[in-house]
């Protein structure tokens, strides 16, 4: 005991500095780590907990899952009713499939439009490239909500498109685009096209053009060289761009809510309605947890292994 204390005393003078050297890096690591644990990770535990609760008319509007009885026993009431409800009411299964389908096809269309755009950009001169890049990036910075609203101005019944088509006599009645599935697709493609073009451009720009020349020298027609060389080499960009469109499109709320009709039930909108209109917090929590497991889980796993593959 005494020996230990004596051994410690002479080092006292340096200990401040030594402590800094040994534990100083925690001063950098801890603030973001703790903040994100408390305000990003722990919330999911609360959502999980409340998804097992039942709706109640009180503030906050759900029953206690964990409670301490007067005789100091911890009481755990898990109700699986919410998850059962998700399985029995077909709205949830339908909107889940609908979200997947909508996100998949809009990603595909974005790819079909974005690929030629990125390809054309990559073949331009450096000066043109810089201007085109700015043009593509600028909408990415402007408000998402306002861009969806701007699109509404074009496609609504008395919007620019219908006015112009009627004026030129191409149609007799205004086209109904707003509140249809088509409008939802249009909205997603319009909003997320830059996310597809940018990563595609990044990979296409780095493409080694001598490979294409070699293919041409060996007598391959350009389309053959494109399919055999350009497309495989641009796959990382295709995957990155598709993920950047697909992932936010699945959980999209603003677009189906503002442009879609009542039957365009995407899962984000269902969750929103459950929470704000039905004020059913436990069911909304259960939807969030199920959503997390069914959609975000696989994506996160895929990315995890994909990144590992790339590192190898």
């Amino acid at each position, binding site marked *: 005991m005494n020996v230990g204390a004596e051994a410690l005393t002479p080092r006292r003078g340096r200990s401040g500095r030594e402590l800094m050297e040994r534990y*100083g*890096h925690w001063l*950098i*690591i801890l*603030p*973001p*780590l703790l*903040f*994100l644990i408390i*305000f*990003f*990770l722990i919330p*999911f535990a*609360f*959502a999980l907990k409340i998804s097992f609760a039942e709706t109640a008319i009180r503030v*906050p509007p759900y029953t206690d899952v964990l409670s301490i009885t007067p005789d100091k026993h911890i009481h755990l009431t898990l109700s699986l009713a919410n998850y059962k409800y998700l399985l029995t009411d077909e709205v949830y299964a339908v909107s889940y499939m609908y979200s997947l389908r909508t996100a998949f096809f809009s990603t595909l269309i974005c790819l079909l*439009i974005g690929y*030629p*755009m990125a*390809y054309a950009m990559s*073949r*331009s001169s*450096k000066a043109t490239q810089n201007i*085109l890049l*700015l*043009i*593509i990036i*600028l*909408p990415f*910075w*402007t*408000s998402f*909500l*306002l861009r969806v*609203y*701007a699109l*509404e*101005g074009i496609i609504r019944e*008395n*919007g*620019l498109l219908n006015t112009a088509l009627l004026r030129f006599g191409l149609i007799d009645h205004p086209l109904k685009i707003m509140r249809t599935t088509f409008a939802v697709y249009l909205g997603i493609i*319009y909003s997320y*096209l*830059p996310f597809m073009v940018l990563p595609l451009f990044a990979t296409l720009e780095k493409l080694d053009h001598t490979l294409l020349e070699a293919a041409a020298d060996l007598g391959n027609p350009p389309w053959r060289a494109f399919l055999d060389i350009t497309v495989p080499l641009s796959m990382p960009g295709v995957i990155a761009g598709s993920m950047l469109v697909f*992932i936010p499109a699945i*959980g999209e*709320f*603003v677009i189906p809510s*503002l442009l879609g009709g009542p039957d365009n039930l995407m899962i*984000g909108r269902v*969750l*929103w309605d459950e*929470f704000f209109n039905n004020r059913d917090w436990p069911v909304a*929590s259960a939807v*969030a947890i199920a*959503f997390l497991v069914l959609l*975000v889980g696989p*994506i*996160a796993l895929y*990315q995890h292994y994909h990144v590992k593959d790339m590192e190898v």
Partner: protein
Amino acid sequence: MSERYPPMLFSVLCFGIAVLYIPILVLIGYSFNSSELVNVWGGFSFGWYKELLHNRQILNAAALSLEIGVVASTGAVILGTLAAIALTRYRGFRGRLLLTGMVNAPLVMPEVVTGITQLLLFVSMLQFLGWPHRGFTTIVIAHVAFCTAYVTITVQSRLLSADRSLEEAAMDLGSGPVRAFCEITLPIIAPALAAGWLLSFTLSLDDLVISSFVSGPGASTLPMVIYSKVKLGLSPDVNALASIIICVVGFCVILAGYVMRRAERRRMLEIQMADR
């Protein structure tokens, strides 16, 4: 590189750019329309802009959004930079995998899910700790949480490409790690900090979903007001408001890009001069 490509490609490029820009340009055009009907051109007027100046609801919401944006993006830059330094400089600390995960998760997490989970945390915290009340504080915390991710990724890539030997040289010459960081590393990563701040600011200013979940009565941000106005139907003053926001943000982005490119060029030039 040749600028010759098939006309097909060129037309797709033009089509894509037109799709991106026509709605915005039309919106700006409509904002000067004196008629309340969208399909009738009633002449050029600044009427909707003047009306905006007298709309208390919109002005209050704009002030709240700007305030939240400044506080949240400053907080996100501080936390995000710390996280980026932690992830690039300290390889093997406990919790590294967790931090990496939490930094990348907001990028794939649907906003509705983040929003509802954070709200449930805030509600439980208020119940047991008496803090925080839903409104300004909760929106700022929620925005910091997702903006930190974007800042971390921006700063991380810059730190990875930065030359670490300069900082080591400074420390060998006897300056402490804090001083070496402030005088050497900070100026190198400054453009990334600025970009991260701007990105966070626009993300915060634009956020509707997360804010709607975690906000309380009385605290309506600009996107929340715009959303409810648009949802209710036509409101030409939103055109004017949208035009102002789009033009200001567009101008700032172009200006920031220009300033950063010039600073970068000057730095390159200085490096070349120093090498000589």
